Every structure is written in structure tokens, then in C-alpha cells.
């Protein structure tokens, strides 16, 4: 085996990590900051993927194949808004009655996830829908024997941008400050004139919107069907729990660790074997450090 062959699982691992991080980022906000176990997270990603599909159809109708080439730019804000609105509805209709009761949020949002799946099925049919990869995302950079697909590089770039945007928003914006304050201590924050209701809604919509953007990326590498989100949900939770609940950097390192480990193990063993090994390693790690990589010191979670 030459060095090129060795570099390739490392790049695959990085690209898998970027997908994992993308899936987990919205979850890290909703689960991490708010303590809501959102089982409908996968369906929010699916909504983003369907938004990509609808964007492509619309662009094609408006301006033909050339316009459709812009799908993967235009779809980002579209998917964000659609998923955020869906999240807002979910928060208003279900989740707001269940704050502080994690297990109840699990059950209620699981029900919502089933309803959404059936809704997708009724609207889009039970078969998968196909989104065409535009010309500028087909093919890849060739470095000797190594091929880095443009689609993967796009996802990598997308996740970097989204991660930075979310981080800066939470750190630098006024609302970001209020979010962090409300999540640490609702009552004290309320005493300072912050409306916890408003903050809950904004945070939930933000996490949902980010899930929608993840759907845009996923539609490049995977399927878009009513149950697509289900395939990613477990992985997303794994990343957040391994990283340490309530910490965006935790999600970052969790995704990187799982992605690389899985990819390298898969290269030397088999796909099923790598999955078992990664699960086992995570279980062992959580036995040693129940709080994950970066345990949160967040009063709301105590």
C-alpha cells in the first residue's frame, strides 16, 4: 500500500466528519443548549433536503438547466428558512409545554417525526426523489491516484461556514448573548428583561434551520426520501453525546473523532466491523468520562 492509498481513508474520514458535524450541529444547539431531545431532528434535515429538490425544480422551470446549476447556492437560505419555520411550529405546538422534561420531549418529538415522515410520503410519494448534481460539483480534484470529489469539498466548505456563522452569532450578537444567558439561568435572565419565551423560540428555530442546511449537503451524497433522516439521527446523537452536551466544540471534536476512526477502521476491516468498533469505543469512553469530551458546566443541565 502506498502513501496515496493511506491518504485516502484520512480524507474520507474528514469528509465523513464534516457530514456528521453538519447533522449534529443543529442538534447540539437544541439538545445541548435547551435540553430538548429532538427526535424529529432527522425530519428537519429531510425537510431541508426536500427544499433543495423543490429549489432545483423551481429554478429549472424558471430558467432551464443553467439556472438549475445554482441549486446548491440558492437552496441554502431556502432550506434554512423552511426548516426554521417548521421548527418554530414544532416549538410552538409541542415542545414549549415540555421544557425541563427531557424524556417527555423525546416521546412527543418522536411522534412528530412519524407524522412528518408520513406527510413527506403524502406530498412527495414514497419513492426517493433525485436531485441532480450540477456541473460545477461533478468530478473532483485529482492528486495523482487520489480523487477529492467536488461534492465532498463543497460539504466541507459548507460546514465550515455554518459552524463559524453559528459560533459568531452565539458569541457576538446581542441575541446570541441573550440565548447563552437564558440557557444558563432562565430566571436570572428574565429578571434582566430577557424574554425566555422569545429566546426559546429563536434558539429552536436556529437549531432547526441549521438542520435544514445539513439536508442540503446530504442531498449531494445520499438519498432524499421520507425516512432519510432516520439514517442519520443516531449518528447525530452519538456525536453530541461523545462531544459533551451543550458545547459546539464538543460536537466538532466528536464528529472528527468518530469520522476518522470509522473511516480508518473501515479501510482495514469491514463496514459493519467498523461500525461495531466505533460503537464499542464510544461506550467504553463514556464509561470512563460520562460527560463526554467536554463536559458542560451548565446549571440548566444539572
Amino acid at each position, binding site marked *: 500500500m502506498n502513501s496515496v*492509498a493511506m491518504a*485516502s*481513508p484520512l480524507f*474520507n474520514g474528514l*469528509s*465523513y466528519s464534516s*457530514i456528521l458535524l453538519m447533522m449534529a450541529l443543529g442538534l447540539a444547539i437544541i439538545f445541548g443548549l435547551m435540553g430538548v431531545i429532538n427526535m424529529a431532528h432527522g425530519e428537519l434535515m429531510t425537510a431541508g433536503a426536500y427544499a433543495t429538490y423543490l429549489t432545483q425544480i423551481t429554478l429549472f422551470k424558471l430558467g432551464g438547466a443553467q439556472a438549475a446549476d445554482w441549486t446548491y447556492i440558492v437552496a441554502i437560505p431556502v432550506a434554512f428558512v423552511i426548516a426554521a419555520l417548521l421548527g418554530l411550529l414544532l416549538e410552538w405546538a409541542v415542545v414549549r409545554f415540555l421544557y425541563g422534561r427531557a424524556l417527555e420531549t423525546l416521546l412527543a418529538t418522536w411522534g412528530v417525526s412519524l407524522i412528518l415522515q*408520513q406527510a413527506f*410520503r403524502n406530498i412527495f410519494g*414514497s*419513492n*426517493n*426523489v*433525485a*436531485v*441532480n*448534481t450540477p456541473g460545477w460539483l*461533478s*468530478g*473532483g480534484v*485529482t492528486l495523482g491516484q487520489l*480523487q477529492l*470529489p*467536488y*461534492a*465532498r469539498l463543497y460539504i466541507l466548505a459548507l460546514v465550515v461556514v455554518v459552524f463559524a456563522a453559528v459560533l459568531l452569532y452565539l458569541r457576538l450578537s446581542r441575541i446570541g448573548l441573550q440565548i447563552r444567558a437564558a440557557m444558563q439561568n432562565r430566571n436570572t435572565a428574565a429578571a434582566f428583561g430577557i424574554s425566555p419565551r422569545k429566546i426559546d423560540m429563536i434558539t429552536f428555530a436556529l437549531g432547526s434551520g441549521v438542520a435544514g442546511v445539513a439536508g442540503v449537503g446530504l442531498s*449531494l*451524497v*445520499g*438519498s432524499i*426520501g421520507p*425516512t*432519510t433522516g*432516520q*439514517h*442519520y439521527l443516531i449518528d447525530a446523537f452519538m456525536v453530541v453525546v461523545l462531544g459533551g452536551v451543550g458545547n459546539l466544540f464538543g460536537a466538532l471534536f466528536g464528529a472528527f473523532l468518530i469520522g476518522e476512526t*470509522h*473511516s480508518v477502521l*473501515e*479501510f482495514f476491516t*469491514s*463496514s*459493519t466491523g467498523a*461500525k461495531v468498533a466505533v460503537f464499542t469505543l464510544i461506550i467504553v469512553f463514556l464509561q470512563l468520562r460520562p460527560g463526554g469530551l467536554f463536559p458542560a458546566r451548565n446549571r440548566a443541565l444539572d
Partner: protein
Amino acid sequence: MKRREFLKGAGAAALGAAAYPIMGGLNIAHADALWKGGVTNETVKVGDLHSLSGTMAISEIPVKNAELLAINEINAKGGVLGRKIEPIVVDGASDWPLFARLAKKLITQDHVPTIFGCWTSASRKAVLPVVQHYNNLLWYPVQYEGMECSHNIIYTGACPNQQIEPSVEWLLKNKGKKFFLIGSDYVFPRTANAIIQAQLKALGGETVGVEYAPLGHMEFATIIDKIKYSGADVVYNTLNGSSNVAFFKQFQQAGLTPEKMPIMSTSIAEVEIQGIGPQYCAGHYASWNYFMTTDTPQNKAFIKAYKDAYGQDSVTDDPIEHGYVNVYLWAKAAEKAGTFDPDKVRDAASTFSFDAPQGVVQVSAENQNMSQIVRVGEIQPNGMFKEVWHTPEPVKPQPYSPYISDMTCDWPKGGLIKRTSA
């Protein structure tokens, strides 16, 4: 449990027996003849058991639709034995234990004399003991791995020697000797790959890699790397469900083309190609008994009827056609037998040939699988198949592949027996 089932069955039969004379109908029912309750002077109930929700719904809903289409057509022509067919449609929800419970419900509560249904081998294996226990009849429409011999199932989908084995031979002849095998991690791909590996050994081919991915797996970059570095001439793909979408997309993104390395698939038909996107799989191959483009007068009529019923955009494919054919085979067998008695219908099913959309087919009296033509098609950019090869004659079914088993299914000789000679 046993006793309760017996009491329930006996009770139902007694009720049925009491009801028949009033309805002016059939002979007094035997305790085991639950099916007679499903037959009146005007109607006959039949079970239709598919996943209408859950992960298999994508594939199974169109098969259910085709079965209902055949039922409507037969009813429009006056029904079977003078009775209209009344389908009882139930949703197995991609949940195998539920398939077993629903099969039992269809037989013991609706008293159907026959059931059309199932897709996955897991669901068929769950229903098998139920139809065996109540001596009912299941019509199974999907290609499968063989290795099964039941008197209560008619298997019309391809068995290994009607799909896998001929397509491997075709690849060896036309595309190369080195095979990379990739499949989902469950019974069909593992059995299929065992056959292919043995076959390659026997015919002078070579297996350069075998990989299994968990069902629903989406991340194929590493497996595709292994395929790239394996030096394979062809990829034999037994992945199932939405993993195929991810696999084909990522295969193309990795710079692999059908010219460099063609993929032969066993679980991708016209319906699935729509969901993957034809542009990702054009140029690759699949092996089936029927394509929508198969050129027969029966197929033209079938496609027209199907589109009229389910929309002009809908497509037909192999399992859809088999579901449609199954209903006709059952109806014709019942007419021949002059009764809906599952035993007699089964015996009659192998006494005639039928002009199906795919061509002439006939159920084998030996193993209750179906003789049919094997085809290899190249996927076109419009999502349809261009047939590149087919067998000159219908191929006799052989559910136990001689490559991996020395058993054979032969009911006139008593069922599952040791193979005596090739």
C-alpha cells in the same frame, strides 16, 4: 396458545358451517377449511399483504397496486368461478412479526383462500409458518435467494439460476473476470455472494473483494476506495433500499464510470432508478425477467392499463409485473380446479402456461417456482432499460443452487430431498 388457536379456528369453522346452508352455499366445512368462510355465492375474499408504510413502502406499494389492477380487470370480465374478487388490503409496515400476525388475521378472521404479498425474504420467512399451519397459499412476487421448499408458497420471482447465475456468466463473457461483490448485510446478499464466489471459482473467474454495508448505510467513500484499488473489472451489487442512492452517487463522484467498471445490480428496477436518478446509474446493468421496455403485445396492454390506473408518469418493473401475473395465475388455477381450495388450486397452478407481459411463463410442479426468461439490461439516461441479452428459452427454476447446496426441492418425490444428479 395452541389450544386457543384451535378453539378459535374450530369456532370460526363451526360458525361458517352454520352459515353456509343459510347462504345456500357450499358443503359443510371441515374444521381446517377456514378458507371457505371467505367465499360466498357472489364474492371471494383474497388477502393482499404488503408494506404500505415504513422503509419497504417505496417498493411494495406499486406491487400492491398491480395486484389490485389485476383483480379489477378480472372482476370486470366476470370474476373467478362466477364470483367477484374482494381484496382485503393490509399494511405490513415493514415489520416482519406484523406480517405474520396479519397473515394469521387474513386466514382466521377474513377466511381468505389465498394471499398475495411480501417483498423481503424476512417477511416471507415470517409468513411461511403461518400459511403452512393453516394450509393456505401465498403468492410471492420478488426475486429471492432460493434455499426454500414450501408447499404453501408459489414463488414467481426469479430464483438464483434465473437472475444471479446467468448474469454472472454474462459478465464473465463480456466484461471481465475479476469481481468485486458489495451487498447489504442480510440474508439475500450473503447467499447471493456465496453462490457467486462458488460460481466464479468453478468458471475461472476471481473474487477480488467482498464488502457488506449495514442496511441504510450512506457513507460509501471508503468501500469505493477499496473497489478502486482492488483491480476489479466489474462490481456485483446486491445492496438494497436507499443505500443504493448513496452508493451510485458516490461511485460517480469518485470518478468511476460504467466504461471503467460496470456495476451489475439485482435489486434496482425502473422504480428504484427513478429514486436514484438515472444520470447516476446510466450505463450500468441489472438482471431481471421483465423490463418495462420488454416488447410483447401483453406488455403494451399491461403498461397502458397500469398508467391509466395510476398516472401517466408511473413506471412498471419486474416485481410489479410478477404481482400482476400472480393474481392471473391464481384465478386461472382456481378456474381449472373448479374450487378455491388452496390444495387443489396449487395442484392446478402447474398445469398450464400463461402469456404474461414478460412472455410465456409456467409454474413448476416440482418446486412451485416459475419458468421464465432471464434478461440483462443496460440502464439508459431516461431511466429505462435497453435489453442487451436474454436467454433463448424460459429457464427452469432451481431454488437450491447446485453451487452451494446438494439439496433439491421436488414435491412429486416428497419435497426437500438430496440431489441425485445434475
